[in-house]
């Protein structure tokens, strides 16, 4: 058992490393192929910067060297733990990511938990009541959500909850104009609710629809029929048979949704001016800030990969058949 786990982790780790290297190379190649010129992106629309200064900028940031040489120098320094300096922020990449990741993480974890729980519960209700009014209502709700653009939903939430009802602050993670030492935890909580809610709403639909599908399949199986015939109450059917059978795919889906979560934060952070990693991704891509982009790519890969790894591990905990190393269909 122990040996199997060790082997499992070693395998996963090697996979992660190869994936990381491949991803770095691909990102770099894609950036090279993109028409974005980092010097122009850096200068922006200014007509005050002439050709001579542009050459100086390229030299300062090492942009005038051939691509292979640039990649190798970036690669050797990152192996030594130096992530480079962001062009946009003019500070070390790790410092930028560190600052931004913490606030994104809080946002994402709240949204993740919320969407998982709400989506799962709604999915089970819809699946059991398949075809009934509750099911139709939940499905309609999910379909509307799935086709809703995040930024639009964000603005809508601001208009309703922040402006009309005045329940929550409009944007940002701290109160406006208040000194850091005067900001309370309650302030921070009230600032995170609306963006987290916006973000979670989008995950709900996905989890809910998949769970519903699975539940309705299970409800049609022989063992449910048998349970019904035995006279089990619908409550006990749900808790004893449905939840157990549905939880495995739901967990997988929930952990796989890490990547979508990451994508969603980009929009949410934009709308709510929330100082997270999402906005940094967009900027670093658009403005050709290679060190920062590569840094974020690495961090997000590790993040998403961890999500998948946890899902794999939970399988083993939840399903004894996988733990025993059995081949199951």
């Amino acid at each position, binding site marked *: 058992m122990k040996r199997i786990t060790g082997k499992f982790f070693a395998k996963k780790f090697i996979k992660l490393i190869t994936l990381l290297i491949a991803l770095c190379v691909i990102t770099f190649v894609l950036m090279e192929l993109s028409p974005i010129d980092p010097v122009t992106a850096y200068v922006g*629309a200014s007509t005050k910067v002439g050709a001579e200064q542009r050459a100086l900028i390229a030299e300062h940031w090492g942009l005038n060297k051939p691509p292979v040489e640039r990649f190798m120098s970036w690669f050797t320094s990152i192996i030594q733990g130096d992530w480079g300096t962001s062009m*946009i922020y003019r500070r070390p990449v790790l410092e930028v990511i560190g600052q931004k990741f913490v606030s994104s993480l809080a946002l994402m974890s709240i949204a993740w938990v919320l969407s998982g729980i709400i989506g799962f519960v709604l999915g089970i209700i819809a699946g059991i009541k398949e075809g009934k009014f509750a099911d139709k209502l939940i499905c309609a709700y999910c379909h509307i959500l799935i086709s809703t653009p995040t930024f639009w939903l964000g603005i809508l939430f601001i208009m309703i909850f922040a402006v009309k009802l005045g329940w929550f602050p409009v944007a940002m993670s701290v109160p406006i104009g208040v000194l*850091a030492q005067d900001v309370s935890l309650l302030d921070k909580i009230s600032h995170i609710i609306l963006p987290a809610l916006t973000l979670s709403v989008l995950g709900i639909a996905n989890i809910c629809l998949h769970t519903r599908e699975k539940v309705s399949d299970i409800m049609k199986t022989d063992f449910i029929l048998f349970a019904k015939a035995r006279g089990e109450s619908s409550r006990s059917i749900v808790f004893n048979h449905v939840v157990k059978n549905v939880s495995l795919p739901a967990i997988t889906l929930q952990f796989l949704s890490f990547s979508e979560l990451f994508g969603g934060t980009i929009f949410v952070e934009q709308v709510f001016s929330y100082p997270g990693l999402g906005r940094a991704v967009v900027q670093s891509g658009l403005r050709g800030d290679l060190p920062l982009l590569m840094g974020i790519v690495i961090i997000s890969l590790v993040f998403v990969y961890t999500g998948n790894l946890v899902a794999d591990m939970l399988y083993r905990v939840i399903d004894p058949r996988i733990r025993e190393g059995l081949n199951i269909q």
Partner: protein
Amino acid sequence: MKKTRIMALLLILALTVTCFAGCGKEAKETAREERIAKGELIASIGAEPEAGFDATTGSHGSITKVFFSTLFKRDKQLGWTNDLATGYQVSPDKLTWTITIRDDAMFTDGIKVKAEDVAYTYQTAKDSGSDIDLTMIDSIKPVNDTTIEFKLTRPYSPFIERLAYLGIVPKHAHDGKFKDHPIGSGPYKFVQWDKGEQVIAEANDNYYGEKPKIKKLTMVFLDTDTAFEAVKNGSVDVAQINGNLASQKVEGAKVVDIPSIECYGVCFPMVKNEGKLAQDGAVMGNDVTSDISIRKALNTAIDREKIVSGVLNGYGSVSTTGLEKMPWLNESTVLDSSEYGNVQAAKKILADGGWADADHDGILEKNGQKAEFKLLYTEGIYRQEMALEFVKVASEIGIKVDLKKTTWDTILPDIHKEAVFYGFGSGDPSELFNMFYGGCAGGPVAWDNSGCYNNPAVNECIDKALNSRDEAEAIPYWKELQKYTSAKGDAPYCWLANANHVYLTADGFSFGKPVVQPHGGRIFDNVTEWSWGK
């Protein structure tokens, strides 16, 4: 049983939330009044300087003026006036600029601003490899505590622009932490920066200039739509918005629009396509737009007033020169309202130029060449709408214009062979060099004179202007060249409109008398005049 439990839970939740919120709302309504009473302001204007507040490693545009003083600044008539400087002198060979500075200016840490701080600021900026072009400076030397000498590599009359560009940083406190905790000699003192969100500043009591009326200034960096909502609910007092949002009425707030030189226009390729290549390999020239009657006809046909009222919602002004309100505008080149928006006159120009619709397909031809070209535009407010209007009017006079959306990166292969939609207006006369100098055509910076205009008379004027002693001496030359570069001359551009900068401000707030805003804005230049009017 189960249902009642859920109901109870929901009720508790609803109660807590509304309680939270209840207090919140009450507080919000009085929050602004409280700010007014204390002379505080929350503004959402412009973008955050992500790299920090270090003037030596990047320009921050207008926001520099909050914490820092610059040597010179534009006055309300767009001439020059002193800020930290008390004057300048240019040597007879035009290569040495000697600047004197005032001796009563203090950094917010209580230490006096000296010439060596100025020299240090410029030297560091020059060496920083950032978007501040100081390549014309040869050396910088502090002569004494209040005098600095700049030696230039060549005569450069717009040099004073660069002297109005950098916020002066203290040499003694300029370390690694400076960008997060700036120390300047401007009207405000830095208090706090929450990265990605807000900067808090308080009035600098030791400021040498007019004391700011707003005692505490909080600058937040919000999305335009979000900022608009934030003004509505009272958590922000001033927000930069756009003409499209301005039509919505907001209780307790009003729309303020400030005239700008943010000018939009279409640049035409000026040479025939003979397969000549620019330095980066892009083909130069267009056989249709290189015909002057096409360019003149479009300039005559486009109804600018319609663009101002339709696209800009009235928040703007007509432009036929791209230089309205600039001291170096040549008034004689301005088209008056009878000289544009005239489709019949435009048709006549085309007919006189030899363009006719022989095959009756609605598109003119000349020598077998159809009157059609592409108009490339990029992402940005108003741009698509204006370009669409341009296309529509062009079709009325028999010119087919295909609109194509692009980015400033992907535009490069086509930039010299199709018409390009630009936004200009830096409020600096040397921009005319970037736009019209023949030597720039097809050079290393693709959008400098992207239409490949090359008129020896214009080149000569630009050379003379740049070689002048200073801006005052250069202005006659800048004016002179517009005889050729205007719609009345060679018409290398079709200028459309200036878009005002639109703000939503809480009732009672006043910007004072802001200067005409260039592309990118200059709103913080008169930050000391901002007030809750009383």
